[in-house]
C-alpha cells in the first residue's frame, strides 16, 4: 500500500488527515456500492432482456412512487455527505487560537518561509510534531496554492492579502509541499519539503540557525526606520492610532463599520491605509505599497502582533503540547 514505487494511499501526517480519510472511505464504499448496483442492473437487464426470437418488450410508462423514492433517498444521503464535509471544512478553515505562526511569501517559483523566531527557509519548512501551526501566506505575484498532501490541506495564496492554512502534524517525516495552482512556466518546480520533527529536535534546529533577531524584532527595526513611530506612538495617542494591544481586537472605523484587527487588516492598513480608517483619525497616512517588501510587511505584522500585552505568538510562549498530545493524535490514525 505504501510502497515507494507504487503507492495507493497518501501518507497521513496531520490531525485532520484521519477524519478526511474517514469521509473519503465512507464515500468510496457508498459510491462503490452505487456503481456496483447500477452496473449490475445494466448488465443483468442487457443479458436477461436481450433481443431474441419470441421475446418482446413490455411497455412500462414509469412510476411516480419509484421516481420520488430515488429522488428523495439520494437527496437525503447527499445532505449527510454535505454536513460531514462541511464539518471537516469548518475545522480546516478555523485555526485554533494558540498557534505557532509561520509567515510565507510565495513567488514565481519559490516558497519563502519565516518563523517568528527569525529563521528563514526556502522551499523547506521545519515544524514540530503536535503544535498547531498557522501558515500566514501571501503572494508577491500570481496566485499560488500551498498544498501538503500528507496533511490533506490546501490553500490558495493570493497577491494583495493574507490567506491562512493551519495544521497539526502528527508523524515525523519529510512530506511533499506542492504549488497546486498553476502559476506560470516553472509551476511544477515550485515544490518543496515539509520536515516534521520531534519537538526536541525542532528546538535544536531552531537554535542552530543564524543568530538574527526574531521576526518581531526585525519588524521593530522596519517600524523605526520608516518613521512609523512618529505618528503611531506607544506611550500616548499620536496622529495615528496607538498600536499597543490592537491585534485581535475589534476596531471601529470612520465609516461606522467594525472590523477585527487581524493579520489581513494590519496588512491592508500598511499597504492601503485609507481604505479602512480608524474612527477619529484622518486618512493622512501615506501608502507603503511598493516601499516595503512582502517580507517587511510580514515583519511589521509580527511586530504589531507582539505589542499585545498578552502574548499571542509562540515567540513569547514556547509551550509545547508535548509527546502526550502527539500520541493522542497518532491514535486517530
Amino acid at each position, binding site marked *: 500500500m505504501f510502497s515507494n514505487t507504487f503507492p495507493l494511499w497518501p501518507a497521513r501526517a496531520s490531525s485532520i488527515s484521519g477524519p478526511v480519510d474517514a469521509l473519503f472511505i465512507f464515500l468510496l464504499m457508498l459510491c462503490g456500492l452505487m456503481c456496483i448496483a*447500477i452496473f449490475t442492473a445494466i448488465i443483468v437487464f442487457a443479458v436477461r432482456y436481450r433481443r431474441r426470437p419470441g421475446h418482446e418488450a413490455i411497455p412500462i410508462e414509469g412510476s411516480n412512487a419509484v421516481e420520488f423514492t430515488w429522488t428523495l433517498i439520494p437527496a437525503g444521503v*447527499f445532505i449527510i455527505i454535505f454536513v460531514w464535509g462541511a464539518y471537516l471544512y469548518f475545522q480546516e478553515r478555523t485555526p485554533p487560537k494558540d498557534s505557532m505562526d509561520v509567515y510565507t511569501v510565495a513567488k514565481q517559483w519559490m516558497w519563502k518561509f519565516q518563523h517568528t523566531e527569525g529563521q528563514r527557509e526556502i522551499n523547506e519548512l521545519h515544524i514540530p510534531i503536535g503544535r498547531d501551526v498557522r501558515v500566514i501566506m501571501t503572494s508577491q505575484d500570481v496566485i499560488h496554492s500551498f498544498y501538503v498532501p500528507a496533511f490533506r490541506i490546501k490553500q490558495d495564496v493570493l497577491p494583495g492579502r493574507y490567506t491562512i492554512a493551519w495544521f497539526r502534524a502528527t508523524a515525523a517525516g519529510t512530506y511533499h509541499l506542492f504549488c497546486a495552482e498553476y502559476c506560470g512556466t516553472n509551476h511544477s518546480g515550485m515544490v518543496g519539503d515539509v520536515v516534521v520533527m520531534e519537538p526536541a529536535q525542532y528546538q535544536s534546529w531552531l537554535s542552530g540557525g543564524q543568530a538574527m533577531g526574531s521576526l518581531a524584532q526585525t519588524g521593530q527595526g522596519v517600524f523605526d526606520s520608516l518613521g512609523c513611530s512618529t505618528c503611531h506612538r506607544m506611550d500616548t495617542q499620536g496622529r495615528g492610532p496607538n498600536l499597543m494591544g490592537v491585534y485581535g481586537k475589534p476596531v471601529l472605523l470612520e465609516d461606522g463599520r467594525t472590523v477585527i484587527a487581524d493579520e489581513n487588516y494590519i496588512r491592508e492598513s500598511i499597504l492601503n491605509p485609507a481604505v479602512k480608517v480608524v474612527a477619529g483619525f484622518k486618512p493622512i497616512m501615506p501608502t507603503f505599497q511598493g516601499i516595503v517588501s512582502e517580507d517587511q510587511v510580514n515583519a511589521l505584522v509580527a511586530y504589531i502582533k507582539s505589542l499585545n500585552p498578552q502574548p499571542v505568538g509562540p515567540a513569547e510562549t514556547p509551550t509545547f503540547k508535548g509527546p502526550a498530545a502527539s500520541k493522542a493524535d497518532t491514535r486517530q490514525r
Partner: protein
Amino acid sequence: MATTAVALSERENYLNKEYGITSWLFTTDHKRIALLYLITITFFFFIGGFFALLIRLELLTPEGDLLLADTYNKMFTMHGQVMVFFFLIPAVPAVLGNFLIPIMIGAKDLAFPRVNLLSWYLLAIGGCLMIYTILSGGVDTGWTFYTPLSTHFLDTHVITAALAIFVAGFSSILTGLNFIVTIHRMRAPGMTWSRLPLFVWANYATSIIQVLGTPVLAISLMLVALERIFNLGIFNPQLGGDPLLFQHLFWFYSHPAVYIMILPGMGVVSEIVTCFSRKRIFGYKFMALAVIAIAVLGFLVWAHHMFVAGISLYAAMVFSLLSYFVAVPSAIKVFNWTATMFKGSISYSTPMLYAFGFIGLFTMGGLTGLFVAALGIDVHVTDTYFVIAHFHYIMVGGMVMAYLGGMHFWWPKISGRMYPEFWGRLAAMIIFIGFNLTFFPQFVLGWLGMPRRYWQYSPEFQVLNVLSTAGATILAVGYLLPMLYFLWSMRYGKAAPENPWNGAGLEWKISSPPVTDNFDETPLVTWEAYNYDELPQEVPVGR
C-alpha cells in the same frame, strides 16, 4: 433494402441538390450547416487530441524531458481551450442538434437560418484566431485564464486566444438563441411539449445555459483583454483588485458550461436507450424536468471550483450544499435510463454500446462529483488529477461517448449510408477500455496528491502515469477508427433505409438522407414520444 437503395440514387436530397463549394458556404439549410460544423469540430478534435497525446507522452517520465516547461504549459492550455470551446460545446448541439431539432419537431428549418449560418462563420472565425494563436507561438494561461497571471505575468498570445473564445462564444449564443426560438415557435401541429423527444428537451436546456451564461464569459475575457491592452485595472491586485472576482465571473459561465457539454449527451442517450430497448422512456416527465432542473441549478454552484481559493467559509458551504442539489436530477436520469432497459428487448448495436458506456462512465463521473463537492475532501483533491479524472469521466466518458453514439445512430440519416457494424462495435470497445485505462489511474494519482498542470512530477507517481499514457494511445486508436470507417462508408457503405432501427422519432419518418425541406408536407403529430409499443420489435439493421 434493395428498394431503398434505388430510392437513394433517384431521390433528390439535401446532399445532392446542389454541388460546389459555394452551395455549402452560403447554404442556409440546417442540415448542411450541421455538416459544416461536423467538419470544423472534427478538425479541432484532432488538434486537441494531438495536444493531449503530447501531454501524456511528456508525463511518461517524471522528468520534464520531451517538451520544455513552457511548451508543456501551452499544450495543456490549448488542449483545454480547443477541446472545450471548439469541440465539446459545439459537438452535440451544433452538429446533431442542428441536424435533428427541426426534423424532430416537424419544421422545415431553424427559425433563423441565416443566423444559423452566421453562427458557423463565427465559430470558423474564432477557430482561425485559435489556429493563429497556436501557430504564432501559443498561449499558456491555462484554459481558465486566471488573473493576475493572464493579465500581468505572461508574454504569450493571451489576447488573440481570448478573442478567439469570445467570437466562438457568440457562435454558441446564437445557436442557443436559434434553438430556443425554434423549439418555441416552429413545432408541427400536434407536437406538444409533452411529446417532444428528450433530445429536444436536452438541447433546449442547453440553449438556456448558452444564452444566459456565455455573455458573462465574454465580458470577463474582454476585461482581461482590455486590462492587457489599455491597462484597465479591474483585476489588478496592485490597485486593490480582488483576484477572485475573475474566478467568480469565469466560473459563473464555465461551471454551467459543463452542463452545456453533458446535457445534449444525455438527450442522445435517451433516444438510443429507448430505441434499442424497444421501450418508452421510464418517467418521461421526470426526465424532461431533470434536464431543466440541471440547467437552472447548474447556475447556482459555480464557486465550488473555489473552495480553497480564499472565498468566505460560509459562501463555500452554501455552494457545496447547492452542488449536492444539482446531483439529484443527474442521479434521476441514470436511474431512469437503467429502468428503461428493464423488461425491454435489448440489442447490442453500436449506438447502444456507446450508450452503455455513457451510463457507466457518467455514473462514475457523477459519483466522484460527490467527492469533490464534499468540502473537506475537495480541499485535498481540488487542483489535483482527481479533478482531472472526474471531469474527463463526464466530458470524455460522458459527452464524447454520447456524441459518437449519436453519430452512429443518426449516421444513416445524415449520410444515407450504413457504417460497418463490426468495426463500429470494435471501436466502441476500444474506446471504452482505452478511456478507463487513461483516466482511472488519474483518480488514484489525484488522491495521492499529484497536482494538475505539472510538467515534471515526483517519481512515485510514475507507474500510474505510465498506465494512463498507455491508455491514451489506445484511446487515440479508438477515436481514429470511426473517422476512417465513416469516411469509407460515405462511398462504400450500404445504402441506408428510411428507418434502419425502427426508430420512433419524426426523423425516421422521412427519407435518408432527407430532402432540403425535410418533409414533403408538414406532419401532424398524433402520438406520444417513444411509442415503441406501437412499432415493430425488430431492429432491422445492425444485428
